[in-house]
């Protein structure tokens, strides 16, 4: 017997989401797998309770899609890879905020294997994709639920890498609502080196009305255990014209937000990250305002 890096498990390949749900429910310690990057990596690193059954979605037909439009909303399937989404003209032209976030992931191999939904469901506060989805008011649609099938992306995470999903839950789609025509967005992040994961992420989505801003979404990642919306920073922009002053006030509000409590780790000190919240929110708002001025 040759050496194997992974512990033993049973491998199940259901033919439908219903069968997948049954397989998850019938094994006491089962995990669902799409691209597999995060799950297999965690298992290799000796996760506390590695799954004894892996339920792969890969052989279920019809789960790899991007459909819809900016005017009617967009849906992304659970087997859609990050690469699929990055190369999608729909994403690029109609939801540029999501495209910009996806493009921040550099490794072609990771983008080829990893799914958009898998990246989100890991629940890391440094997810470029989840930061963008929070700013886009996206929902996750859970399979096999009745009344409570829609989970707002902003409510997914309870702590770093801990989501509110039950082990039997399967997310069957990301649903991004329609965007009004006068909507301008921007994505900014900081990394140590380009291929590294983000040490701070900011996504802004501004709903414009004349020269002013009717409403705003400002999502911040890697500055707290979960990705959050900086509500006071959003409020600072509501009903005011976009100017250097209003942008600075909003960035200051993000800096002072009680949620803004970044950790110190090998990528940065918490003090530096906190300073950079102000800088990145300002940069993202300036970039979105520049697009609004052109539109």
């Amino acid at each position, binding site marked *: 017997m040759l050496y194997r890096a992974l512990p*033993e*498990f*049973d491998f199940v390949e259901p033919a439908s989401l219903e069968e997948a749900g049954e397989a998850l429910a019938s094994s006491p310690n089962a995990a669902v797998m799409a691209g597999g990057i995060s799950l*297999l990596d965690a298992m290799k690193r000796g996760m506390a309770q590695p799954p004894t059954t*892996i339920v792969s979605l890969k052989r279920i037909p019809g789960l790899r899609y991007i459909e819809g439009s900016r005017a009617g909303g967009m849906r992304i399937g659970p087997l859609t890879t990050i690469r699929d989404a990055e190369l999608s003209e729909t994403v690029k032209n109609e939801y540029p905020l999501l495209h910009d976030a996806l493009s921040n992931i550099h490794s*072609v191999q990771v983008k080829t294997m990893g799914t958009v939904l898998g990246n989100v469901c890991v629940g890391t506060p440094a997810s470029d994709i989840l930061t963008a989805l929070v700013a886009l008011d996206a929902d996750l649609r859970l399979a096999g639920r009745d009344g409570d099938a829609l989970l707002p992306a902003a409510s997914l995470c309870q702590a770093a890498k801990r989501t509110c999903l039950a082990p039997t839950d399967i997310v069957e789609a990301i649903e991004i609502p329609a965007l009004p025509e006068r909507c301008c967005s921007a994505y900014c992040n900081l990394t140590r080196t380009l291929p590294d994961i983000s040490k701070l992420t900011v996504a802004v989505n501004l709903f414009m009305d004349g020269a002013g801003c009717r409403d705003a979404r400002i999502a911040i990642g890697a500055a707290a255990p979960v990705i959050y919306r900086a509500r006071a920073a959003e409020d600072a922009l509501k009903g005011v014209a976009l100017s250097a002053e209003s942008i600075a006030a909003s960035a200051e509000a993000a800096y002072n937000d009680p949620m803004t409590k970044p950790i110190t780790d090998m990528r940065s000190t918490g003090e530096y990250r906190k300073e950079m919240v102000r800088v990145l929110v300002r940069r993202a708002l300036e970039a979105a305002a520049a697009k609004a001025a052109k539109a």
Partner: protein
Amino acid sequence: MKSMPATFYVNGVRRDLLVDPNALLFEILSDDLGHSGVHRNCDRGDCGICTVLVDGEPVLSCLMLAVEARERQITTIEGLAKGAELHPLQKEFVEKGAVQCGYCTPAMILTAKALLDHNPRPTKEEVKNGLSGTLCRCTGYVKIVEAVLAAAEGGK
């Protein structure tokens, strides 16, 4: 844990094996099938050195279950040369001296092949982006990028 019968097409050759679900693709390719050009390195998806092509797309063989590559076309570095005739990318890597220790070279060439198959005339920037998931700790990338650009031009 039940072993599963699996058919792989490695460099065009059909291989029928009984595979444990927990076997990683690179364990099968390197340890079981003896493709020594499939290199184990960081073992956690950071460096790209274990890259092989599955149905023409670059994947990390350290983070893919072998059973997920059943019935698919797998290309390792051993599959590129035709007898003694090197692949254009291999020729250019030799020509430009894009190799130092050589450990990343199989992955670098395969990643470059996938890039050129999608985009036969990449810009320098596109080459750098296309290769950014594959790390080289010796060369500083200048000669690697030159070699890929030269191979692309050679395909005119």
